[in-house]
């Protein structure tokens, strides 16, 4: 069996503007888009895309499939799929985007738990369930493509990914920074009326990241 798919090809070295190429991918029940891309790479066109673990952990294979961000490694292959790079980030070659802007905008905010000098003996800790869920984030950056207003070139404009990172710190039992204030510096107020963002692996971004940061109460 074959599945007919279209894949974004873009090679700035050759000065082109990019186009979609057609590929008849060999297809078996249970195959994923990642397998089709690897296959395309081996058989016909050495398409350039990031990949790592192949089971949702490394977050490298996020692409847009039929206009929606998805992990290639967990999207079932079928006929008629169109695969493009994440629109929220600059395209470098084929399906590869520049991931850097998504991280560098966070650096001024110390996106790690600000614990200070650890006490001699740590208090017995319990991890809030929000922290547990948020820590599953594999940083695939797909959520940025679901945000209508995120701009990678505007340092005052965060997106769902950046708010998840701040919320991770916010819910860390030992963090001592005012994360809601940081979120405001990244213009989180504009999220209040939107809430369109989605996580590719099901983290409830709005409920566990955006709303707690918007409501602003600094967790002890």
């Amino acid at each position, binding site marked *: 069996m074959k599945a007919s798919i279209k894949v974004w090809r873009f*090679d*700035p*070295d*050759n000065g082109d503007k990019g186009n979609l190429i057609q590929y008849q991918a060999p297809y078996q029940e*249970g195959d994923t888009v990642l397998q089709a891309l*690897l296959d395309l*790479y*081996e058989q016909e*066109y*050495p398409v*350039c895309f990031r*990949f*790592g*673990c*192949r*089971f*949702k*952990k*490394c*977050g*490298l294979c996020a692409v847009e499939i039929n206009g929606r961000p998805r992990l290639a490694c*967990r999207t079932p292959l079928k006929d008629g799929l169109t695969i493009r790079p994440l629109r929220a980030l600059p395209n*470098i*070659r084929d399906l*590869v985007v520049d*991931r850097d802007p998504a991280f560098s905008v966070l*650096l001024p905010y*110390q*996106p*790690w*738990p600000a*614990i200070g000098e*650890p006490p001699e003996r*740590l208090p*017995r*800790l*319990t*991890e809030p369930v929000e*922290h*547990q869920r948020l*820590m*599953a984030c*594999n*940083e695939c950056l797909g959520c940025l493509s679901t945000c209508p207003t995120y701009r990678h070139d505007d340092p005052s404009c965060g997106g769902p990914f950046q708010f998840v990172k701040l919320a991770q710190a916010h819910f*860390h039992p*030992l963090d001592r920074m005012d994360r809601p204030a940081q979120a405001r510096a990244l213009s989180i107020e504009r999220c209040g009326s939107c809430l369109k963002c989605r996580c590719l692996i099901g983290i409830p971004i709005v409920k566990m990241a955006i709303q707690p940061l918007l409501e602003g109460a600094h967790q002890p």
Partner: protein
Amino acid sequence: MINHQILVVGGGLAGMRAAIEACQATGKGGQRLDVALLSRVHPLRSHSGAAQGGANASFGNAEAGKDDNWEKHAFDTVKGSDYLGDQDSIEVMAKEAVPRIVELEHWGCPFSRTPEGKIAQRPFGGAGYPRTCYSADKTGHVMLHTLYEQVTKRRIKVYSEWMALALVRSAGVCVGLVAMEMLSGKLEAFRADAVIFATGGAGRLYQKTTNAIINTGYGMALAYWAGVPLKDMEFIQFHPTTLYGTNILISEAARGEGGYLYNAKGERFLKDYAPSLMELAPRDIVARSEQIEIEQGRGYENAYVLLDLRHLGREKIEERLPGIRDLAISYAGVDPVEQPIPVQPGQHYTMGGIACNTWGESELPGFFAAGESACVSIHGANRLGGNSLLETVVFGKLAGERAAQFVQSKENSRKGEQDIQSALAGAQSKIEGLLKADGTEDFPTIRKEMEVTMTEQVGIFRERSPMEKALKIIRDLKERYRRGCLRYHGRSFNQDLMRALELEGMLDVAEIVAMGAVAREESRGSHYRLDFKARDDEKWLKHTLARFTPEGPRLEYSPVTITNYPPVERKY
């Protein structure tokens, strides 16, 4: 030329832990050492993040683990290694385990807790007590984040998506390396007084593997080409529970939490192989038992057995093994709450690696190794689950510390610059050669043939004549490699080129695995010879060393360090 005092290659747990330690040291003038980290994927994307089950440390926090201590951890590891592990290093690991895990906790690593708030511990294979600290089933992920936060906080320079292509020695010491910035395709020379490799395992030599597509063992090949021997490479771990079809790992945590393995006759077949430890026997034994059941017709579709978690109940599965449940649903269409999971053995871990001692020192001064790419040796002939995450932080730290001591005694000299420049020129012309080549062979095809050959002929059960055939195939593939041809000739993010470069290393490493396995005429741990079924301490209680020569690898041997645990028969 870029200059750093210490350059760490590899952004996984071992590399980051090494960099953190090294940058804490101060140089002669009292200023902090200049440490940089270079990695072919962003550190957080390293395969360490896929580890599910946990890391061992003898806290004794679980009720059933009250009597645990570091000596028991050391003994279990020695026995698990089938007595090939070096006992002095194993003792260091077992003693350092608790402080290293506590340190992670202090850095904010969210380990799962007992009801009293202590770090929770679960049972793992081959261990006498529940000793494995975990964070649900995403332990590697949270450890990786914790270390990356420390790296960022310390402002360690990270070269992300840079691939090392050559390690440079000059006048008998390591002086730096050549690397490629993947995004632009630009080559760059790096000068360093010490280089630490933490480049991960070589699982992708095999077709059926739990490893990421990026775990190619290329770092091992680079060290080998620079004259550093690889140790014990024939010891390849096969994990008993990988998803049938995709070989995605179902962590040992599933059995640690109480999962059972059934053959097609509905029997918990381990009763015939490891009656006392059953499903929690070490991996080599469980994987072999499974393979025997399958080969003797007691598997399903001659390919898999069943891992049953149903009796654990929905609540426990959702609380302790949510990631595993999700993987089974996503990739096998099976919800373990309701149905058993089809599993089969698959390649999982490279016990061997760059030969080094407890402090990561290789025989090349200034060159260190840690993590899965190193062979200290802790795991000997078979690694115990949960010892590898531990190894990354224990030996990453020691390698970082020793590398710092090594450079502290030196001026940041410019020695070896000429050799680095000529290595750069060498890499450049190799790449240009590949980009220009118009050969008839296709690299992906060569790679596939290698993977299949290794899986079928140098797998769980081994025998002289099929392995000799495999060796011949691999040597033919090396010939064909020279007539290979790229399909993409641009510079930026040329994966076709990167994968071709890696393949050259993989073929050499595959040859070393096969040669070591043919030579070792005994069965020990993961290395099981149908034609030599017994362990033979008289002849083979020794490490294999493979050394580069222009004619191919030369095998040498070195003694095993025995301290407190004389070898006895290994029974479970």
